[in-house]
């Protein structure tokens, strides 16, 4: 399997990438890690006439911390996120999600932004971005547009981006509560395979153990789903097992999974409930300081 012929240019900055996109438009694709694009080109599911390589765009590889946000350049590599101690402390859900993403060889090249823009429905990083209500910063030659991650994914591998826009960075809200916990879990056929269903949760408790903030999502549907209303109902409770079981049952009712070769819709619905329960309990226990 060989890709169809194409030409390429190297962008040394975000501005150069945008200028090249403006020139080549719909014929062009950005390439960073290439861990999804190159297989699609090999199978000729994608035949871009022009590749814009952003691996040299240093201004897309930064990680910035502020009091309220954590902003990662779209071209930050998954390996870097896995190993960054500051991110592990301030944005631990990403590292937990990455344990399920591909393999060492793919995480060494693959990027945060690439996974989100590719938008495989079973992918872990888009789910984490939706659960945490991240904001995507899209750039073109005219300027910057902000899109909530929860509105970015429209269908499997279909996202709200125009051909001349480049995902520049992903901004996550920082959770500053003292007692927080998070968890990511999934069921897949083998380690590193695409998830049949994935789930993620993040919880914050007050000093008395009451839930003050909760986020929850599953990737059982055609696109990752943040269950914001179900999570909101957890706030004010003490998150005992019965409350979590009720929320998990609500999740199972709220998802509308597709069926495929690997799992029926009914099985996926069941898994969404089971995994929602597991991640809520694990996130709660971590927030309580019991692991």
């Amino acid at each position, binding site marked *: *399997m060989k890709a169809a012929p194409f030409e390429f240019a190297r962008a040394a900055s975000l501005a150069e990438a945008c200028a090249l996109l403006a020139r080549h438009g719909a014929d062009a694709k950005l390439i960073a890690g290439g861990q999804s694009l190159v297989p699609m080109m090999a199978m000729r599911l994608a035949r871009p006439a022009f590749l814009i390589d952003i691996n040299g765009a240093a201004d897309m590889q930064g990680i910035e911390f502020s009091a309220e946000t954590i902003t990662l350049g779209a071209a930050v590599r998954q390996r870097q996120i896995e190993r960054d101690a500051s991110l592990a402390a301030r944005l631990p859900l990403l590292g937990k999600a990455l344990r399920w993403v591909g393999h060492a060889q793919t995480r060494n090249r693959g990027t945060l932004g690439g996974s989100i823009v590719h938008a495989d429905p079973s992918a872990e990083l888009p789910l984490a971005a939706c659960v945490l209500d991240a904001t995507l910063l899209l750039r073109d030659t005219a300027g910057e547009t902000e899109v909530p991650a929860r509105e970015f994914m429209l269908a499997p591998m279909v996202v709200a981006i125009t051909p001349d826009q480049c995902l520049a960075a992903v901004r996550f809200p920082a959770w500053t509560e003292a007692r927080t916990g998070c968890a990511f879990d999934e069921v897949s056929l083998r380690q590193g395979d695409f998830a049949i269903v994935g789930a993620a949760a993040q919880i914050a408790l007050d000093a008395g153990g009451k839930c003050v903030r909760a986020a929850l999502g599953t990737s059982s549907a055609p696109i990752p789903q943040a269950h914001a209303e179900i999570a909101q109902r957890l706030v004010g409770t003490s998150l005992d097992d019965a409350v979590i079981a009720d929320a998990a049952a609500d999740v199972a009712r709220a998802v509308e999974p597709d069926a495929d070769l690997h799992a029926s819709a009914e099985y996926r619905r069941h898994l969404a409930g089971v995994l929602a329960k597991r991640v809520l309990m694990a996130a709660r226990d971590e927030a309580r300081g019991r692991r």
Partner: protein
Amino acid sequence: MTEKKHAVAIEVNGMAFQAEVPARLTLVDFLRDEARLTGTHVGCEHGICGACSVLFDSLPVRACLMFAWQAHGHKVTTVEGLANPDGSPSPLQDSFCETHALQCGYCTPGMIVAAHALLEENRSPSEADVREAIAGNLCRCTGYQQIVDAVQLAARRLGETR
């Protein structure tokens, strides 16, 4: 059909290789067809099997998921570059022979590269560590157990000599 060619220079196993290649030539095809280093195998060609694993700037990557021009100016190490300086098998490669960690040998270069990268970071990996490190490499002969044994045997031997 005449396809435009691009000058690509890559340092492979410490030696400089240069060639004029089309944009769509993958790194693994550059290594095998231009550098004539056929130790790295081409398996699935779409990033699933791990047979083409090489070290790119010291980190294991799939050489079928990079184009040769993306490696321009970078350093690549293939399975040939992991042997002892005199060309004899390294302790890791010897361990693969000893524990019968290969039958057809197709996956072996990728396995050796993945295992080498693990041992660079973790000198006494648990069985789970080894299985995690080779999870991206498919073997259809061994059932993996002997490969895990080989990596752990190599870790013990390297621990004695390091």
